[in-house]
């Protein structure tokens, strides 16, 4: 289903932060992209892209469904509709070996509890590993998505507790310690290309450090800096995110409101 998206301005009143993050993420996906999708906002964003400007996007879920075309965002990674609408259903070992590890995934989406300035990610613990303050779900597919997808996108809300100077645990590697440190780890993928937050968008500079490159409408540089645990650098050509168009919001809301 291809739709022409008109860049109609809609008032941002009533647009949720989830919605703007999802729309911005969807726009980053080109048509035909092969996307390894996590559950939640990434799955919604990838499906929004598929239903608007990227009808040929291929969605791969770690449950083994290749080319899934769900009509509503699945609650879990393994919902039955994913298998029913997929071009192929393979085993979980195969999805990680023949598909992700082999470098067939263009974009891997990652969420995070903490991210550092080089886009390294923690989804394991807050506090000490042996005596954690908060035990998080753990690695899941993230370390190998981070290593083997050609590019990764990160989505999370921006606060000083999530954008930290030092991770409590490095679950997945972004640009490592910057420079050529990621390449020296032997990773086949290029690492994080964009971090999408509720405040704006960050992209790595040549050293791999995340730099604020766009603000969502109504947000300020001061907010972004205050919500970042390291001295955040701001791009010279800082942009303002194009607000969600009416078409984007219509499709997104139709997608998320399905029973």
């Amino acid at each position, binding site marked *: 289903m291809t739709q022409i998206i008109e860049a109609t301005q809609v008032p941002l009143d009533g647009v949720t932060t989830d919605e703007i993050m999802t729309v911005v993420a969807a726009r980053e996906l080109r048509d035909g992209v092969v996307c390894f999708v996590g559950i939640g906002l990434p799955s919604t964003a990838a499906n929004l892209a598929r239903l608007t400007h990227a009808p040929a996007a291929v969605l791969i879920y770690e*449950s083994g469904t290749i080319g899934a075309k769900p009509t509503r965002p699945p609650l879990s990674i393994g919902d039955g509709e994913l298998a029913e609408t997929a071009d192929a259903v393979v085993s979980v070992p195969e999805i990680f070996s023949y598909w992700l590890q082999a470098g067939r995934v263009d974009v891997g989406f990652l969420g995070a509890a903490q991210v550092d300035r080089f886009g390294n990610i923690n989804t394991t613990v807050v506090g000490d590993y042996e005596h954690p303050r908060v035990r998080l779900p753990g690695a899941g597919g993230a370390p190998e998505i981070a290593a083997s997808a050609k590019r990764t996108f990160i989505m999370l809300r921006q606060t000083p507790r999530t954008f930290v100077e030092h991770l409590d645990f490095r679950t997945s590697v972004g640009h490592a310690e910057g420079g050529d440190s990621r390449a020296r780890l032997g990773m086949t993928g290029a690492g994080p290309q964009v971090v999408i937050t509720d405040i704006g968008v960050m992209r790595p500079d040549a050293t791999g450090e995340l730099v604020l490159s766009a603000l969502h409408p109504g947000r300020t540089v001061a907010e972004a800096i205050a919500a970042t645990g390291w001295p955040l650098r701001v791009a010279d050509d800082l942009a303002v995110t194009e607000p969600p168009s009416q078409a984007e919001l219509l499709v997104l809301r139709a997608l998320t409101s399905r029973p």
Partner: protein
Amino acid sequence: MAAFTGLAEAIAGNVRDGDVVALEGFTHLIPYAAGHEIIRQGRRDLTLVRMTPDVLYDQMIGAGCARRLVFSWGGNPGVGSLHRFREAVEHQWPVPLELEEHSHAGMAARYVAGASGLPFGVLRGYVGTDLPAHTSTIAPITCPFTGEVLTAVPALRPDVGIIHAQQADREGNVGLWGIQGVQKEVVLASARSIVTVEEIVDTLDPRVTVTLPSWVVTDIVHVPRGARPSYAHGYYERDNDFYQSWEAISRDRDACTEWLALHVLQAADFAEHLALVDQEAPA
């Protein structure tokens, strides 16, 4: 040849205190009935293995069955934390829970090695992360041809592998379809295996994509809806409402204990459990 038996007998006959037990299911075909029977029989000190410990393992951990968890992602998918898992790790309640933590790709490679009779599997993984510092079952390995350094993980070989599947035929051949997860691998990697099935049929459905021949399965048990609140493709859908309701049930230690007492321990079997949850379900 697989034996057809009852669930209580299958669990009593295969699962002993201290065993390494893997109840697998990647969202789909999770063997809830078998897990509840393990709780009901009061098994202790189990090492529970699973890629995606979710609500079933939260129940088993909350019930005090587990001493150790080998896993890659512990959460209630799309809902949030596993509170019993967190309380066991953060507050050692009801008993301390040791963790052996991997990634999905690593766990999958470990099952494949186990099913293949190899002592280890190889992957591009873990490099540059903090996982190897905390997990002893991750080691570097060098390609003898290119000199490239990759990662090795040891085979998983559970004492017992337990899955749910849609069908068994009367010879005991098991068939499943839809999301396959590591259902085949866990049975082939384990010393003993239990498969609960929705239905026993004369001939397996043509939709079957994974067949486990009778002679690689230890016990087969007919347990209709035995995966609920997970789902069985072609039989019933995932009970997403229950997964969401588990958030509230499991947040409080006592509320969860009470729920387990009423819905699992005091239910004579899984059919009685289902009758109870059906009765409580929103209309």
